[in-house]
């Protein structure tokens, strides 16, 4: 995992002051370096055997790149690298925002029904396909578009259910999310029952998640939807910190709580919807990455959100590198990999932390 390689946080002289921002800044530098390394590694390595240094030497010396190298670097590895960054950062930040909003370290887009909604949308598109209105017109964009729509509808429905008289109940939202997830999964199950063999295969692979389909068009569509929440996130940080005191106390220190909740939900829906639409069901990034950052440098959202973004990107890049090299030339779906590493690692952290500090 990305952070396992990081040294234990050195509080230095700041330990006595309880100010962990030096540690957080240190973590940010470390994570950024890690991100740079993983980016380069993803560009340099792959089953095609194209060498990045060779290609760079060619460019510097003014030689034409071979068509093969150009395609491998420019049309396959680079868009895939960028997509991995976007999805990793988007999922990790969404997780961190949701956890702050729900005041619960176990909140995750998967829990509040966003992922289930996206999955229902995607499976509907795969199974019913061209029979849907706009189906033929959207063509290969049908699956991501429906996944995004599904994520949005689930989120907005949830928000409507949990909001009464202008106040959103976070507890209602969590419980309604579980109910919506069950409902969406039942409908997905019904569609799966109707599906033929080829569609079943598509559904299965979509649910396992993959970055293999990365293209520049996909990036052009997903990037604004994921980057906008990144830009907004720093403005939510102060409010999310205050929310840790409880909603009433957050209001008392001047935080417009209802506006904060509304923006946070919108940002999460946008970011998760786009990430899931282009990559399928990649789990655990949203829950493991923020948790790691909290362990290393505390829960202050002013640092948690950017650090989670950087580490999330680095983590997904590493996972993608492994997924496409470990059984090359075949490819392991990345969702399997993140779950195989993320699950036990998360359990390990939970067990170690149990009883020391209330998460």
């Amino acid at each position, binding site marked *: 995992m990305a952070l396992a390689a990081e040294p234990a946080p050195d509080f230095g002289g700041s330990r006595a002051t309880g100010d962990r921002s030096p540690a957080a800044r240190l973590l940010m530098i470390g994570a950024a370096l890690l991100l740079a390394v993983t980016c380069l590694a993803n560009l340099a390595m792959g089953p095609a055997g194209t060498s990045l240094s060779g290609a760079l030497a060619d460019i510097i010396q003014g030689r034409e790149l071979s068509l093969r190298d150009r395609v491998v670097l420019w049309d396959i590895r680079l868009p895939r690298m960028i997509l991995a960054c976007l999805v990793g950062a988007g999922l990790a930040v969404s997780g961190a925002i949701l956890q702050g909003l729900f005041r619960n370290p176990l909140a995750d887009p998967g829990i509040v029904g966003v992922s289930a909604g996206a999955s229902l949308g995607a499976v509907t598109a795969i199974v019913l396909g061209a029979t849907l209105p706009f189906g033929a017109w959207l063509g290969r964009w049908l699956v991501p578009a429906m996944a995004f729509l599904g994520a949005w509808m689930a989120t907005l429905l949830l928000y409507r259910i949990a909001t009464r008289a202008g106040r959103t109940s976070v507890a209602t939202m969590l419980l309604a999310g579980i109910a919506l997830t069950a409902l969406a999964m039942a409908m997905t199950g019904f569609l799966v029952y109707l599906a033929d063999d080829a569609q079943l295969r598509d559904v299965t692979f979509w649910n396992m998640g993959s970055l293999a389909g990365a293209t520049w068009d996909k990036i052009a569509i997903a990037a604004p939807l994921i980057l906008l929440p990144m830009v907004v996130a720093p403005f939510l940080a102060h409010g999310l910190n205050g929310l840790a*005191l*409880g909603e*009433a106390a957050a209001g*008392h220190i001047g*935080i417009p709580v209802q506006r904060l909740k509304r923006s946070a939900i919108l940002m999460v829906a946008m970011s998760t919807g786009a990430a899931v639409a282009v990559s399928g069901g990649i789990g655990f990034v949203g829950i493991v990455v923020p948790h790691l950052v*909290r362990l290393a440098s505390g*829960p202050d959202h002013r640092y948690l959100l950017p650090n989670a973004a950087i580490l999330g990107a680095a983590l997904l890049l590493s996972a993608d590198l492994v997924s496409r090299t470990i059984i090359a030339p075949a490819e392991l779906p990345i969702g399997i990999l993140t779950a195989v590493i993320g699950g036990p690692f998360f359990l390990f952290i939970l067990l170690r932390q149990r009883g020391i*500090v209330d998460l």
Partner: protein
Amino acid sequence: MLYAENITVTLRRKTILRDVGLVARPGQVTAIIGPSGAGKSTLLSVMTGDQPCTGRMTLNGRDVFETAPRVLARMRAVLPQASALAFPYTVAEVVRMGMVDPHAQGDLLHQALDRVGLAGYEARYFQELSGGEQQRAHLARVLLQVWQPVRETGPCWLFLDEPVASLDIGHQLQVMQIARDFSDQGGAVVMVMHDLNLTAMSADSVLILAQGRALVQDSPAKAFTRDMLSRAYGCNLAVNRVPDSGVFILPQTAGLTPGQHDTAQDAGLRLHPQTGSAMR
């Protein structure tokens, strides 16, 4: 000034507060007392703008329900009853959340912690603290929020919901002194209290609530009469007088009022403890 007039709160068709009025002034400590379930905390949350109600409620001439949270936050701070904190923040991080004024000068964090007797606790995890320490850490956060009792915009307000509930007697006195100092410097303090003697000692004005109605608002010396307290708490309380320094209530001298005999055993147990604060 704080004016609350005809405050009525109805929740699920049950009337929690009925036509309650309260006036609180800068430079004074105003206490709200009454038995459990009388509506004390509800009244406090009306004053902090958290509880919708009918009636009129103004703070420094502003309608609190029409004022933006950011503006209110610079005018008043609220100490809640014990509440759970999410995520492992350090004491310093929690207290600093009260710093709503970005232009604040100096090392206020340490001064605030020092003020509540938690100097050196900066790097401790909030969740590691005992209940009383957590309460005082929150008090430090709240004090930091209104560090200047008087701002150019007017006096600042401290709303404290049972600030001494989980504290030992030494820290109870310390917290009452903090409230006293804040009002002496021109600020205003409104607090919900259970302890009648601490209230008698440090409040300038006391509102007695019982069953959602205000019985009286006056100075402790005038409001704490045998008749009034006995009516509010449903037991026969004797008020005693110390020369030159107000009144006190000794639970040992209390008796039960008629009509309470069916719960005499239960009530008798409750009246035995050595301090008045156990008389809930």
